């Protein structure tokens, strides 16, 4: 495969076909200890590791790419490493920030940026190095819909101005169609399955691509939603709620403060709103994990049974069968060294018998499609598998309320459908499914009632 100078290539393929590995190798950041390489790979005729810095790389996770604590310093970092003289360096920094449309002061703290802004910062940092080749590894997988467009537009502007060559990996194709001029599809065997003009490739390979997990426009994943329940008792109520992420510091950001909410068994509720509007905090508060600044979250007798009315006062074990929380980052909630043990933690904490634990675990392994990975370490799973495991581990104790934070982040079309279908199934059996989400497809697919949080200016 050869990429000509100035070409903009969208690289597609199923999970595990080696897209990210190829990008890392092109950027020269693949260590010798990370597998075996066969064949040759050159950038402008050189080994990429020798010309590190002539290739700009933007990765998926916004947080792990921020290097310095001030915006200007972060963009300058790459130039410093390349030995760009100080005067020219700051000119480049300003240009790069302008081009990606990040209009914040140079000493703006990088921690205060949103996900979309952080991705544009990473783009500016790569751009300031004036690379001949830009590599983007799912740059929008972990950010909200507004952020996706922000980043896409910034990339388009950068490529138009710099004339740089680009290779982009992304599952959600639609946003990128007008930016790229070629699509290359990798097969599951690692070879090239298709290569050509974007719309032609999509027209010819659309079905195969969708089956491989690519979000092909017009072939988005669908699930057949199960009917709503006729009986849906109220399980959880939020009364005059004001949220606080850290005790003693109420979030003033939500216009919906104070917040009133009833959650019924068998219904789906979507907590939506931009980054920083308090979705995660609301999810943690509803989950009985953090106390609100004012007001309260109450469980009805139906949900609480022998426990008290306030979930925040429940013992950790009392939460298990009542309210299950799935965290935004699965890595925060994994506790065991194998997938099987991870699923068994909840049932064991409930002191269920060994036979019951084993039967629940085996059933979940099969349903999550993780049976073959039962002995694998949860941390070694792919992002999509980790997400399914984190949901499964919570379902193992059969909570009647399920609170999830961004359940569909970073999923390809196939894993997305499997996950959403599973959530719809537990909903249809009477569980309340509450999800903080940016994903309009998810909200539509499960027919969720939407609670839109807003961020007040200033």
């Amino acid at each position: 495969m050869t990429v000509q100078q100035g070409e903009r290539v969208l690289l597609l393929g199923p999970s595990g076909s080696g897209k990210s590995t190829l990008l890392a190798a092109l950027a020269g950041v693949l260590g010798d200890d990370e597998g075996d390489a066969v064949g040759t790979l050159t950038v402008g005729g050189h080994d990429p590791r020798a010309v590190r810095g002539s290739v700009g790389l933007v990765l998926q996770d916004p947080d792990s790419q921020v290097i310095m604590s001030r915006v200007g310093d972060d963009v300058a970092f790459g130039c410093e490493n390349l030995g760009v003289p100080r005067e020219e360096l700051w000119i480049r920094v300003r240009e790069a920030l302008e081009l990606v449309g990040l209009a914040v002061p140079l000493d703006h703290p990088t921690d205060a940026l949103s996900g979309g802004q952080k991705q544009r910062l990473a783009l500016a940092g790569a751009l300031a190095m004036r690379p001949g080749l830009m590599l983007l590894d799912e740059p929008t997988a972990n950010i909200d819909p507004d952020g996706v467009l922000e980043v896409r537009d910034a990339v388009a502007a950068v490529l138009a101005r710099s004339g740089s060559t680009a290779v982009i990996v992304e599952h959600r194709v639609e946003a990128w169609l007008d930016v790229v001029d070629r699509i290359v599809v990798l097969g599951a065997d690692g070879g090239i399955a298709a290569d050509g003009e974007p719309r032609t490739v999509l027209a010819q390979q659309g079905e195969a691509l969708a089956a491989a997990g690519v979000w092909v426009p017009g072939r988005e994943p669908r699930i057949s939603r199960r009917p709503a329940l006729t009986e849906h008792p109220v399980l959880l109520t939020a009364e005059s709620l004001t949220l606080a992420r850290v005790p003693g510091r109420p979030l003033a950001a939500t216009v919906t403060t104070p917040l009133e909410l009833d959650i019924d068994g068998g219904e789906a509720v979507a907590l939506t709103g931009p980054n920083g509007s308090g979705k995660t905090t609301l999810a943690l508060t509803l989950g009985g994990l953090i106390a609100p600044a004012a007001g309260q979250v109450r469980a009805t007798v139906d949900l609480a049974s022998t426990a008290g009315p306030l979930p925040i006062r429940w013992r950790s074990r009392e939460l298990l069968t009542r309210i299950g929380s799935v965290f935004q980052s699965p890595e925060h909630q994994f506790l065991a060294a194998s997938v099987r043990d991870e699923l068994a933690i909840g049932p064991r904490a409930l002191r269920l018998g060994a036979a019951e634990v084993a039967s629940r675990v085996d059933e979940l392994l099969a349903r999550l499609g993780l049976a073959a990975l039962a002995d694998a370490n949860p941390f070694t799973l792919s992002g999509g598998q980790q997400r399914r495991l984190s949901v499964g581990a919570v379902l193992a104790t059969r909570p009647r309320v399920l609170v999830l934070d961004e359940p569909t982040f970073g999923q390809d079309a196939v894993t997305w459908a499997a996950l959403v279908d599973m959530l719809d199934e537990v909903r249809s059996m009477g569980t309340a499914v509450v999800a903080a989400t940016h994903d309009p497809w998810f909200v539509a697919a499960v027919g969720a009632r939407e609670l839109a949080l807003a961020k007040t200016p200033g």
Partner: protein
Amino acid sequence: MSGLPVSNVRPAAINPVAKLAAALLIAITLALSVDAVSAGVALALELSLLPFAGLSWSAFWRRTAPVWIAAPLAAITIALYGRASGHAYVTWYFVQITEGSLHLALVTVLRVLAIALPAVALFATVDATDLADGLAQVLRLPSRFVLGGLAAFRLAGLMREDWRTLELARRARGVADRARIRRFAGLAFALFVLSIRRGSALATAMEARGFGGTTTRTWARPSAFGAREVFLLALSGVIAATAVTAAVVTGQWAFIGG
């Protein structure tokens, strides 16, 4: 310097390397003797200079709170258990409050305050990035080492948030009712694993921006060592010298181990 951002020419920002050296100079000098005069004189001079440190009163008390707690605690411990000499006021099992131990307690309080207060006051206004710039450009420490340290420092901020989330996650998973110590050990290990993952991800991002290459690095922010820095060092030199002189003249200077 037209190309530089405004933030890097803040008038109040003295090079952190100078602050570090000034604090060290006083600390080392005072550590040489165990007498009340040198520490007392140094403390008095420092207190007279504190209003110029650029700290608001509330910030001053907040930052120095640990010092105000630690110093009296150290004094009480020494008063009760310190080397006994002279008249004994109280004797009860291992506790012996004597003239000597009380004197030692006073000396300790003064010394802790005289060393810690200027250090805290000077470092309250130090920015990690500026310190890294200073260490690499003024002291010529290897850039790999300095920038690696700086990145690690930034990760430390994320670790606090991670710790909180890990705690909440354990409660959600039904395992937070267990013994506190075992839980703490588990949390610490989980945080350790998470930090390594974050660290290696960050290292990849840094490498992708040409970090660790063979090119000689340039520095975006100049780290200057000029008149202001020399003045600060001279000031701390004067404090140290005055303290020692006063102690020697009054015959109180007691060289440690001497």
